């Protein structure tokens, strides 16, 4: 039983069903075309990221990947798109067109005509957090609203997939059907940001054709040092506060999962928090590369499919973005049937 602070428990939120579109086409990292243009140091880092292959979409596009995931989640829950109360899209880092709406495009393709539809973003991988907060708020505020669909398609902002020295971006669509009850209860969510890092990584685009877009790090030593140590301090404090708020200690947490950036990044988180991450993090990292905001719940669902977790287990999910943002989710596993 979770004991909450005197302020009471957060409003109920649960993942009723989840689905992913993971492209079958996977490209070995050693065969990425951009590898030819990398110097020796970058090739060495790339080879040591712990990524064997990346999932590559061969023509669907972001909206269609998200749509496939949405249809999968709706089908698993037996919910019709017309009955969705809200559709929240975690927007692309680089949409296909400006001014237009990815959100209403997906709404139209799904036929979710009655859904309140809007987008969230601006925090990289951590943008999943505001999407879940919006869903929780909507479900708490409107008793007639029963389902919120959160969707995202992760695909690189640039022609290249390698973000030196961090990760290799893969492609995937994700859909989470959220309700007040479901097999994975989201007990709580804590999040912090520090705008001092807002453009640590960026893509300049206004003065150059798309073929020349590159992800550039403004300050590599700053990334490797200041943000790294700040991340340790922030996450340790957030975790301690999150557990305390629910009357839990480390022994009450059955597992931890994070986003999949690199083998070194996963080890960094383990050492920062003095925890061991679920092995599915490394397995999905090696298989798909980094899938942005889609990683953490894909890792959790993979662990559930592998029967690594049981009913009543509590799991902490960790998301970090260099913009910079830090987010922890505390979830509890309910009665489980594989829906992965």
């Amino acid at each position, binding site marked *: 039983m979770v004991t909450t602070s005197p302020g009471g428990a957060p409003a109920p939120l649960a993942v009723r069903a989840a689905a992913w579109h993971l492209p079958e086409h996977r490209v070995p990292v050693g065969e990425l075309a951009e590898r030819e243009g990398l110097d020796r140091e970058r090739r060495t880092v790339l080879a040591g990221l712990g990524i064997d292959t990346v999932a590559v979409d061969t023509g669907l596009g972001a909206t269609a990947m998200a749509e496939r995931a949405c249809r999968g989640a709706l089908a698993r829950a037996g919910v019709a798109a017309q009955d969705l109360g809200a559709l929240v899209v975690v927007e692309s880092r680089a949409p296909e067109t400006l001014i237009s709406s990815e959100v209403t495009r997906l709404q139209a393709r799904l036929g979710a005509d009655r859904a309140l539809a809007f987008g969230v973003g601006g925090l990289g991988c951590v943008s999943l957090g505001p999407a879940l907060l919006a869903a929780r708020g909507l479900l708490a505020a409107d008793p007639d609203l029963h389902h919120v669909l959160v969707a995202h398609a992760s695909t690189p902002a640039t022609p290249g997939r390698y973000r030196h020295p961090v990760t290799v971006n893969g492609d995937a669509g994700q859909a989470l059907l959220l309700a007040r009850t479901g097999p994975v209860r989201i007990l709580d969510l804590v999040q912090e940001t520090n705008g001092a890092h807002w453009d640590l990584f960026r893509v300049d685009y206004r003065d150059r054709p798309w073929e020349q877009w590159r992800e550039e790090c403004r300050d*590599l030593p700053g990334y*490797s*040092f*200041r943000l790294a*140590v700040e991340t*340790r*301090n922030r996450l340790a404090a957030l975790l301690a506060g999150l557990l305390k708020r629910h009357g839990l200690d480390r022994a009450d947490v059955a597992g931890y999962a994070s986003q999949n950036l690199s083998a070194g990044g996963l080890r*960094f988180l383990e*050492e920062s928090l003095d925890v061991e991450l679920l092995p599915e993090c490394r397995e999905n990292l090696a298989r798909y590369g980094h899938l942005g905001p889609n990683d953490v719940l894909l890792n959790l669902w993979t662990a559930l499919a592998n029967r690594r977790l049981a009913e009543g287990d509590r799991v902490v999910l960790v998301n970090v973005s260099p913009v910079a943002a830090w987010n922890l989710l505390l979830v509890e596993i309910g009665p489980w049937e594989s829906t992965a």
Partner: protein
Amino acid sequence: MTDTAIEIREFLTVALRRPVEPDEDYFALGLADSLFALELVVFVEERFGIRIEVEDLELDNFRTAERIAALVAGKHGGPAAGDETGAGRAARG
């Protein structure tokens, strides 16, 4: 070179798997990644009994062994490094 700087230099030499001079900027040489940063900060905190806070994380405080020693000395409340056996350790309990 202070005792603190000597100890830090020894740590750096082992962690980076190459000799490091007291005033050598190993970040500029591209030798540091986030795991190394974590190990370095944990070493400094545990060995010298201080807590590195976000406001201490200016890279300039950590660029060389000498600068880290100066940070440690400042944390201990004195201009000189090498007296870490006193207040810092006591603060750790």
